[in-house]
C-alpha cells in the first residue's frame, strides 16, 4: 500500500513538474519575439524602432526592403541585411526621398510607392540596387488627399501592376464624416479613387489617362496580393466608419462596433464592391444600403447586385496586408492559405478594440475553406491595452522569405519579426 501511495505521489510530482515546465517554456517562447503564436512557431525580432514600417518585401538573397510612411533621416526605404546569419539585421542602407506604403519585387526590379507616385529601381547581378537616387517614375499624379492615401501595389506575371487608390472619404457624403450630410449619387470620388487601378510595367510616367480602373466600389484597400494558383487579384477592404456617430437614431454604439464587416474579395476585372452606397452586414449576411443613401439597415436596394465578400472579418479591424503563403515550411495546413495583418481598430470605442493581430484563413480552390484563426497575437501589449495610441505595435505588412519564413512589419513600434516553424512544442 505504501508503495502504491509513493508511486502515485511520484507520478503526480512528475506530471506536475512536466506541466510546470511546459508552461514555463510556452511563456519563454511568447516572450522571445513578444508575440503569441501557435505551438511550433517561433518569432524573432529582426529589427526594431525603424519608424513607420508599412509594407515590406524580401529579395531572393534575404535582403529585406521596408517602406516607411514618414521619412527617417530624410529617407523612405530601408534595406535590412543580416550579414552574419544570426537572424538579426546588422546592416541598414537607407534611400528614397519620399514616404509611402507600397513595395514589391518583380523580375529584377524593386517597385515602391509614395502617396501619389510609383517608382522603380533596378537590381544588378549582385542583387544591389543600381539607381537608389534615380528611380524610374512608372506612375504619377494619383489622388492624395491625406485620408486613405496609401498606395499599395502588387504585380502579376504579365507585366501588369495593380495599385490601390483609397477614397479620401468615409461614405462619400457631401461633407465628409458630418452628421446629416447626404450621400452623393453618383459618388464623384469613384472616378479617380475608391478602387484598384491597373498600369503597365513597360511604360514610364503613366497617369490616370493610361491606367485602367480595374475594380471599383472599394473604400480603402491597403492589403492585396496576387494569387498565383488562381491567377487573380485578391484584396481586403477597410469598411466604413461611424454608423452610430453619424446616425445615432438608426444605430446603437454596440451595432457600430460590429458593423460593417471588413471584407475579403477576389477582385476580377470590372467588379463593383458597392462602396459608398452599400456595406456588408455580417449578421444578416448581405449588403445593405448605407444610411446616407436612404438605407434603414435592412433594405438591399441596388446592393443586391454588388459583389459579396469571400469572407467577412469583424468590423473595424483594419486589414493592412494580405499574403498567400506559397511556401512549404509551415506545413500542409498553411499551403496557399491567406495571412491577413490587422492594423487594429479605433471605431469600436467605447467598446473594447479589436484586431492588432495576424490571422490565417485556410484556402481551397481560391476560396476560404474554414474559419479564420488568430495566428499571431499580443502586438498591442496584452490586457492593459485599451486605446490605439497605447498600442505598442500595430501589424501592417507581411512578406514571405525564399526560405519559407514569414516577416511581419509594424508601423507603431517599427519592429520587423521573422516567423519560422521549428516544430518544437
Amino acid at each position, binding site marked *: 500500500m505504501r508503495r502504491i501511495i509513493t508511486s502515485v505521489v511520484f507520478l503526480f510530482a512528475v506530471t506536475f513538474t512536466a506541466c510546470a515546465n511546459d508552461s514555463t517554456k510556452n511563456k519563454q517562447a511568447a516572450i522571445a519575439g513578444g508575440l503569441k503564436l501557435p505551438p511550433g512557431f517561433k518569432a524573432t525580432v529582426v529589427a526594431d524602432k525603424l519608424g513607420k514600417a508599412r509594407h515590406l518585401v524580401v529579395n531572393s538573397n534575404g535582403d529585406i526592403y521596408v517602406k516607411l510612411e514618414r521619412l527617417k533621416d530624410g529617407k523612405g526605404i530601408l534595406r535590412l541585411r543580416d550579414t552574419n546569419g544570426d537572424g538579426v539585421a546588422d546592416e541598414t542602407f537607407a534611400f528614397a526621398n519620399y514616404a509611402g506604403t507600397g513595395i514589391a519585387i518583380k523580375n529584377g526590379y524593386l517597385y515602391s510607392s509614395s502617396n501619389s507616385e510609383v517608382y522603380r529601381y533596378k537590381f544588378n547581378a549582385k542583387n544591389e540596387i543600381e539607381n537608389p537616387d534615380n528611380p524610374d517614375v512608372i506612375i504619377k499624379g494619383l489622388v492624395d488627399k491625406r485620408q486613405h492615401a496609401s498606395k499599395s501595389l502588387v504585380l502579376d506575371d504579365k507585366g501588369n501592376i495593380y495599385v490601390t487608390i483609397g477614397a479620401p472619404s468615409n461614405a462619400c457624403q457631401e*461633407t*465628409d464624416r458630418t452628421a446629416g450630410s447626404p450621400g452623393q449619387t453618383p459618388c464623384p470620388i469613384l472616378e479617380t479613387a475608391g478602387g484598384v487601378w491597373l498600369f503597365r510595367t513597360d511604360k514610364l510616367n503613366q497617369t490616370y489617362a493610361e491606367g485602367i480602373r480595374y475594380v471599383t466600389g472599394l473604400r480603402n484597400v491597403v492589403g492585396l496580393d496576387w494569387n498565383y494558383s488562381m491567377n487573380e487579384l485578391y484584396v481586403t477592404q477597410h469598411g466604413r466608419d461611424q454608423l452610430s456617430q453619424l446616425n445615432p437614431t438608426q444605430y446603437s454604439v454596440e451595432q457600430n462596433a460590429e458593423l460593417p464587416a471588413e471584407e475579403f474579395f477576389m477582385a476580377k476585372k470590372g467588379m463593383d464592391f458597392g462602396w459608398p452606397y452599400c456595406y456588408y452586414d455580417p449578421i444578416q449576411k448581405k449588403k445593405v444600403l448605407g444610411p446616407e443613401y436612404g438605407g434603414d439597415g435592412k433594405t438591399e436596394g441596388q446592393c443586391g447586385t454588388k459583389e459579396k465578400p469571400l469572407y467577412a472579418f469583424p468590423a473595424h479591424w483594419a486589414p493592412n496586408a494580405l499574403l498567400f503563403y506559397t511556401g512549404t515550411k509551415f506545413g500542409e495546413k498553411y499551403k496557399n492559405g491567406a495571412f491577413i495583418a490587422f492594423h487594429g481598430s479605433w471605431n469600436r*470605442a467605447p467598446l473594447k478594440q479589436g484586431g492588432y493581430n495576424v490571422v490565417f484563413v485556410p484556402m481551397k480552390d481560391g476560396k476560404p475553406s474554414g474559419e479564420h484563426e488568430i495566428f499571431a497575437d499580443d502586438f498591442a501589449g496584452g490586457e492593459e491595452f485599451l486605446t490605439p*495610441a*497605447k498600442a505598442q505595435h500595430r501589424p501592417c505588412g507581411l512578406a514571405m522569405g525564399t526560405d519559407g519564413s514569414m516577416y511581419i512589419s509594424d508601423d507603431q513600434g517599427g519592429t520587423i519579426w521573422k516567423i519560422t516553424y521549428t516544430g518544437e512544442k
Partner: protein
Amino acid sequence: MKKSLIVLLIAVIAFSFSTQQQDIKASIQRGKKIYESTCLACHQPDGAGVPRMNPPLIKTKNVLGDKSKLIRTILMGLDEEMEINGEVYSNPMPSQPHLKDQEVGDVLTYIRNSFGNKASMVTTAEVKAIRAKIKL
C-alpha cells in the same frame, strides 16, 4: 470702518472665486457627457486620439492655446494637414454646429481640464461671440 471694508472686499473676492470654481466644475461635468456622445469615438476615452488619423487632445497647443481657434474648430470643423509632436493626422474634423453655445463651452472646458490638461474655462459668452462673427 476701513477694516470692515477690507474684510468685506476679501469676502466678495473669496465668494466670486468659489463661484467660479463651482462654475468650472459644473461645466466640466456637463462637458464630459458631450465629449462621450460627440468626441470620444474619434479622440478616444483617454483623449490620446488615433495615431495617423485623429489628433490627441493631451497637452497640445491647439487645446491649451487660442480659445477662439478652438471654438472655431468645433463650429466649423477642420480639414487641413496638422502635425503634432512629429505625427500627422489624416481624418477631417467634422463641424458640430448643432451644439448650443453653452455645450460648446462645456465640452471645451472639459477637454481643457481632462487627460492631464489644465486651462481656463471656455464661457458661453466667448462661444456666442465667435458664432456671431462667423455668422452660423
